[in-house]
């Protein structure tokens, strides 16, 4: 029983972190990217590649994983977003991010293989049941990450520049902020968060080229449940979804994961479309 709950919390942390990725990208670009889950997949694969195939220590694997996430984040902005946001066609970014996510996933599938492979242990620890690192690592990463982002937004200059761009891009540019660079940087940062999510998730989900689309969907549900723009809401929404999936997997069957996720999404969209913690936007009339 406890195992089901802890498993749900760990899963929820992954969805929550993906929701944070969505949030960070949305805040500066007003784009919800289909690629949001793919950084975690890339981070996991690179982490496993560096440690298992090249035989380097775990901390180097983490470093490589984070770097690859940041690079892919920046690449997705450069390839799929930058040219698109200048046009006014709202549909194009859905297409371009979908295409980018497909390409990343397929390339990984071809290079790495489509079978899930095990991920190395991050810390020396025998199997410890409920207290195993595969459970607490994602939860800890998510909490630390959310706290760090909050401090980043509140205390640092760069964070304030982010907020200014998110609030009103035009006004930010009038104050001399290069919003294009801010957007690129926010994508790199969100890619890094995604990679950290994938690295911490490795032992729970295994290294799987399809992880990106699973997290993309689950993270989006977490986002919609929590309300767009709220990181805490995303984490709570993710936890809700993770627990729900963990319980139904155990009592009904693991084949209903997507059905549960999308059921929760539709319920929320029907009855509380603004999410649990709606962020109010000022709209000029």
């Amino acid at each position, binding site marked *: 029983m406890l195992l089901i709950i802890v498993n749900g919390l760990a899963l929820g942390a992954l969805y929550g972190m993906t929701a944070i990725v969505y949030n960070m990208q949305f805040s500066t670009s007003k784009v*919800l990217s*289909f690629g949001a889950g793919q950084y975690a997949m890339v981070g996991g694969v690179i982490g496993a590649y560096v440690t298992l195939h090249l035989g380097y220590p775990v901390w180097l694997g983490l470093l490589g994983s984070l770097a690859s996430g940041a690079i892919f984040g920046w690449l997705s902005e450069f*390839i*799929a977003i930058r*040219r*698109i946001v*200048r*046009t*006014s*066609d*709202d*549909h*194009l970014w*859905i*297409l*371009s991010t*979908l*295409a*980018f*996510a*497909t*390409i990343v996933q*397929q*390339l990984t599938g*071809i290079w790495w293989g489509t079978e899930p492979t095990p991920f190395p242990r991050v810390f020396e620890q025998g199997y410890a049941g409920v207290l195993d690192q595969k459970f607490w690592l994602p939860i800890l990463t998510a909490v630390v990450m959310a706290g760090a982002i909050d401090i980043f937004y509140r205390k640092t200059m760069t964070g304030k520049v982010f907020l200014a761009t998110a609030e009103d*891009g*035009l006004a930010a*540019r*009038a104050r001399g902020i290069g919003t294009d660079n801010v957007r690129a940087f926010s994508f790199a940062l969100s890619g890094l968060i995604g990679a950290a999510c994938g690295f911490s998730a490795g032992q729970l989900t295994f290294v799987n080229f399809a992880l990106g*689309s699973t997290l993309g*969907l689950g993270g*989006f549900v977490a986002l*919609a449940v929590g309300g767009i723009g709220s990181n805490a809401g995303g984490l709570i929404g993710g936890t809700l979804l993770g627990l729900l999936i963990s319980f139904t997997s155990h009592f009904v*069957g693991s*084949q*209903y*994961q*997507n*059905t549960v*996720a*999308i059921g929760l*999404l*539709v319920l929320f*969209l*029907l009855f509380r479309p603004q999410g649990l913690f709606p962020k109010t936007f000022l709209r000029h009339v």
Partner: protein
Amino acid sequence: MTPNTVVKPIGFAIATILALALPWISPNLYYLHIFTMIAVYWILISTLNLLVGFTGQLSIGHVGLLAIGAYTYCLIAPFGGEWPYLALLAGGFIGGLIGLGLGLPSLRLPGFYFAMVTLAFGLIVSELALAEQWLTNGSVGLEAPSLPAPFNTQTTFHLFVVTIAAVITLMTWNLSRFMWGRAMISVRDSDVAAMSVGVSIFRTKLTVFVFSGVTAGIAGGLYAASQSYITPDAFIPDLGMFFFTAIIVGGRGVIVGPLIGTAILAALPEISGPFQRYGVLFNGVALLFVVLVAPGGVSELISTIHNRISGKGRRPAAPADLDVLKTIITGATVHVG
């Protein structure tokens, strides 16, 4: 009387006759099978184009409706005796019904939400097809009876499929030319403008969605009849991605463009043999390329070239969307800022 009113019907007739004559043009049975599959996909894609290209609702999950049609056909056809056509119709009916159930909540959502919900719908259908063994026989799959006597050879089956495809193409073409087509385009380009001239946005979207659900169900039945055996593996999300990409690559908002896109995307992995496993990757690359370089797709490229040759100069090929106007108006402020 523009040239289009004469040229297009003739072009349509020629294309139909060519498609019908394919068994004699290319006697190779393997190629014929590919052509038949293209026609089956086209039955689905031609109406999905009304939804994606004309109405602007990006559905990635029509593979779910295709699967539902295919399973309905397999489950009902054995009871139909000499009349499995009824099972095809039943597939269309159930496809439309499920489309209605899916469209009612999801079509109210903005673009990305809708795309995500339809994507998830495709996942759910294959998930349930795997899980509900009492109905679908799980991963083992179901046997799909082929059509009876006149249409049981590959050639006659091809003729049957192409005839249905031609009829549905004619329907979509007629829909797109007149009132409904205008309504769809207005919903896509500016919902405010659509409302101001009395177009019911939600009803338009829902009608188009249900229509595409019906043809997706029929296409699913034909798909099953052509395969003789179906498993949940056949209806992976990649297939939904293929339908969607075919429309975007071919060109949104024109009838003939997605046909070209379908033919290219369906034929290439088959012909290229050893590169078959790169098929989905190729879809992604094609989609990204088209979005970045030629958002109007292949058909826009063709009409641009055609206009150059026929001396119409650099005038934009298709009548400009409201988007262009929007860019011109808003562009000034954006660039100043």
